[in-house]
């Protein structure tokens, strides 16, 4: 069924009893051309672009829980392309362009909201660094604007501009950045992929990857064996475990990142805001809750829940930036398990096993990447060559020294 204003009116006259399920909850067939492991945003987007752009529709997405139960449904929904390095800018900008047309393309309301993302700076040196980053973005055709303190004050009068330690000195704004409704992105891709013949198989955990003579031939699952000509991993947070099923070791550690949402408030914050003197990002959802988060807990974890010191750290940063938040109550908090790669950048590549492809290492930033990640993995799987905007995201870059280290932190995953 095509969604439209007309279909909404027609359904409302029938008491909304006629809406069908948006996708089929498929049972696995015995054979597919392509099996995608992981029904998060990336896996579903890959399936959608394989079917819609590359003519490959005999595809299954195999998800151990329900789709969107991983990071896709746990993130703070920020989308932006304000990167510094030339390997990253084209990729994230291509993702931003896909976001801009996503809802029309999928016929699904993903609530993409280009409300702007402002990175605050607190020293002259940081302002210089942001000017450099803004210039790199503009050279690559991405919008960026240095904002002066007075401009920011007019927009966000409630921040602590004269904080004794971290006074606000300005900021780098990307107006085209913003937020999108994370669950709706999952559901939109699922529905559009399903409509093109993709099987979405839930409650089906991959427990093994079969390799014969160096070539992948299928996967073992809790719902039986599935044969496949090609297999693609998109299991954010569990990449090391699933890759190990094919005998691979990865330059990745799994870490927990927590996020928080406050009680609902009247409209207050009209953009995404990032504190430059600590790790804190904050936006306001359309329901009114302030959605915010900070850094990872910092130790290896698969627990999907974190500890109190990180919570205290995030709250302190919030108070330092915006003291009035002390009166606001936190409603919920949760954690998600992310792949932290050794240089802080992602991997979209083939592996040493023929027909086995990997999409991993998204660290803090994979939600914004969802459309381009799906497009690039689909391109790689269909054509056996990297998509031009993802050509740098090679698995062997750690061995060859072509690292993509935005923060210049070196091979210490918990510092990226």
């Amino acid at each position, binding site marked *: 069924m095509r969604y439209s204003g007309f279909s909404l009116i027609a359904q409302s006259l029938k008491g909304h009893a006629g809406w069908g399920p948006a996708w089929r909850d498929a049972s696995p067939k015995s054979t597919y051309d392509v099996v995608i492991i992981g029904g998060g945003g990336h896996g579903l987007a890959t399936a959608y672009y394989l079917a819609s752009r590359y003519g490959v529709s005999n595809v299954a997405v195999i998800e151990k829980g329900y789709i969107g139960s991983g990071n896709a449904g746990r993130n703070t929904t920020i989308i932006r392309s304000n990167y510094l390095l030339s390997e990253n800018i084209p990729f994230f900008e291509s993702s931003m362009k896909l976001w801009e047309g996503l809802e029309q393309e999928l016929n699904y309301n993903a609530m993409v909201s280009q409300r702007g993302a402002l990175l605050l700076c607190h020293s002259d040196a940081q302002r210089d660094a942001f000017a450099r980053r803004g210039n790199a973005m503009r050279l690559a055709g991405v919008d960026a604007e240095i904002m002066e303190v007075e401009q920011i004050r007019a927009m966000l009068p409630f921040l602590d501009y004269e904080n004794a330690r971290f006074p606000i000195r300005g900021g780098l704004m990307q107006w085209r950045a913003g937020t999108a409704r994370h669950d709706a992105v999952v559901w939109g891709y699922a529905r559009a992929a399903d409509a093109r013949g993709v099987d979405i198989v839930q409650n089906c955990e991959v427990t093994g990857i079969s390799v014969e003579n160096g070539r992948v031939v299928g996967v073992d699952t809790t719902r039986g064996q599935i044969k496949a000509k090609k297999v693609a991993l998109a299991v954010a947070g569990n990449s090391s475990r699933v890759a190990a099923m094919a005998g691979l070791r990865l330059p990745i550690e799994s870490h927990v990142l927590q996020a928080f949402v406050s009680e609902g408030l009247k409209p207050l914050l009209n953009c995404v805001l990032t504190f430059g003197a600590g790790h804190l990002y904050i936006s306001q959802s359309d329901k009114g809750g302030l959605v915010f988060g900070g850094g990872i807990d910092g130790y290896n974890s698969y627990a999907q829940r974190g500890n109190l*010191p990180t919570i205290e750290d995030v709250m302190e940063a919030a108070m330092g930036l915006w003291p009035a938040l002390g009166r606001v109550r936190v409603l919920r908090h949760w954690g998600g398990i992310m792949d932290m790669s050794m240089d802080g950048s992602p991997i979209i590549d083939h592996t040493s096993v023929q027909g086995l492809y990997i999409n991993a290492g998204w660290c803090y930033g994979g939600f914004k990447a969802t459309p381009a990640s799906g497009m690039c993995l689909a391109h790689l799987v269909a054509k056996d060559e990297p998509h031009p905007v993802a050509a740098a995201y090679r698995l062997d870059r750690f061995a060859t020294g072509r690292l993509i280290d935005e923060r210049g932190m070196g091979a210490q995953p918990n510092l990226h």
Partner: protein
Amino acid sequence: MRIACPHCGLRDLQEFTYLGDASPSRPDGLAATESAMFDYVYLRENPRGLLEELWFHNAGCRAWLAVCRDTLTHTIQSVVPANKRKKGAAA
């Protein structure tokens, strides 16, 4: 999460700094080939379950500790000073 430091007793997580997996050991001399160094610097087992790891008690005795911890439940099995570590305790 609290860590029972052998010198200071049960202390809050906030007092500790994390280095990571304790098992990689730096290849030396002629063994330090390009591929052995690559392995040491970049590749990790990243298990879901028991992991032996190095923590620094920076707000306490400032000793390095070898902690055997379950990455799925965060339960800690053992803590010993890093120089008393028996290799492969998590296996």
